[in-house]
């Protein structure tokens, strides 16, 4: 499939003049950004070219094993992000385990559902569909899971006295943690709710814009975007809930105790 208006290398060079303009602004205004700007631009171009080449090769291979491997590698990178963002850390690689489980679960469930029901490429795991879909879902799941995890770990450390006061009065650990669990899941899901409210009014979502530029009928592009938003909403909710419940499990025990000793010392 070729886009309606193919881009040549010269077209890209012309657009790159805008980045050079940014660099000139940095020098003229003494922003000290030009070095970083140059490095970031170069990185962006090289990374995207590399991804393009890899994807082309993977699509051509049409091997389910290779597709799965690529998706798993993406999940691993996302899990690292989820683990690294919160200020507090669960001991013994807890953040990584929680992040990886939550991200993998939410992404795979959501992507497989879309591939087997709405999109139905044949076969359903065809790399051309599976990899980009998993990628975009992953980005949102990552965001939701890391926000939720950060919120829970931060809240529990801050509210230790209140939680233990409830426990000392005979509350179950579930009751004592409930407010914080709920608030953390909420925090994780909020971005996707905002994203849905703003879609099309404040911003034209990237995927839709890309498809329209590539020559697709706007209504077709909109249908894709709506499907995608549903997937992102579902993935975010699953990712946030999974991250929070898994982390809460690690921070409590069967004797209804709050186990902050299972957080790594800062």
């Amino acid at each position, binding site marked *: 499939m070729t886009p309606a208006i193919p881009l040549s290398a010269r077209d890209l060079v012309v657009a790159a003049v805008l980045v050079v303009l940014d660099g000139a602004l940095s020098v003229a205004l003494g922003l000290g950004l030009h070095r970083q700007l140059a490095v970031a631009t170069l990185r962006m171009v090289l990374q995207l070219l590399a991804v393009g080449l890899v994807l082309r090769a993977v699509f051509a291979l049409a091997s389910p094993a290779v597709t799965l491997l690529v998706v798993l590698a993406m999940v691993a990178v996302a899990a690292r992000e989820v683990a690294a963002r919160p200020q507090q850390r669960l001991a013994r690689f807890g953040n990584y385990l929680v992040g990886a489980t939550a991200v993998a679960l939410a992404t795979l469930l959501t992507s497989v559902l879309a591939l087997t029901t709405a999109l139905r490429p044949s076969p359903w795991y065809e790399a051309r569909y599976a990899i980009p879909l998993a990628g975009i879902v992953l980005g949102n799941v990552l965001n939701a899971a890391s926000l939720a995890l950060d919120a829970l770990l931060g809240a529990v450390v801050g509210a230790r006295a*209140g*939680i*233990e006061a409830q*426990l*000392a009065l005979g509350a179950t650990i579930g009751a*004592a943690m409930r407010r914080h669990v709920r608030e953390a899941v909420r925090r994780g899901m909020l971005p996707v709710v905002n994203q849905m409210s703003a879609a099309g009014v404040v911003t034209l979502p990237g995927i839709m814009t890309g498809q329209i530029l590539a020559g697709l009928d706007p209504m077709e592009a909109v249908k894709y975007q709506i499907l995608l938003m549903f997937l992102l909403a579902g993935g975010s909710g699953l990712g946030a809930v999974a991250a929070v419940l898994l982390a809460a499990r690690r921070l409590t025990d069967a004797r209804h105790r709050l186990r902050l000793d299972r957080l790594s010392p800062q």
Partner: protein
Amino acid sequence: MTPRLRLDGLRSALAGPFDLAVGPGECVAVTGPSGAGKSLLLRLIADLDPGEGEAFLDGAARSGVPAPAWRRRVAYVAAEPGWWAEDVAAHLPPAGPAPALAAALGLAPALLTARVARLSTGERQRMALLRTLLGDPPVLLLDEPTAALDGESVARTEALLRTRLNAGCAMLLVTHDLALADRMASRRFVMRDRRLAPA
């Protein structure tokens, strides 16, 4: 006679082992320097910190009782009480003898519906004791219950605790106040190097 509370080799990675028996109506005081492990002992008995060994309430082993049920009966009142809502009322059952207890502790009735943030340190300390006493626990683990109180409030709190002792409650009282320990307790221990020694 079966002691109300008995500790049998109770220990954690941080403190113990502790062996102790407290009879019904008895108050045992624990004194000692800050950081010696006095609060750790109370938390360990309340099962808030993981540990080994066993504790018994009226002869029944803690390990056979769900933790929330144990903590309702063997009630720990922290030196710095925790709160989980903005209003005092959210920390109390909707009905019950809270007004009578508040009066006994010298707390104005209006404080029962105030914001927690409006209470002074001493008022919070008494309010935390109040919400625990509402559950009528047979064992009280009290960590510095009068540290932030003025003389009159100390007297009122002591008098209320004494009525609980007379009703058969067993008390473990952690305090820096030797005079309070002498007034309330029949036996006193000193916490040294995270172990109990007779005073």
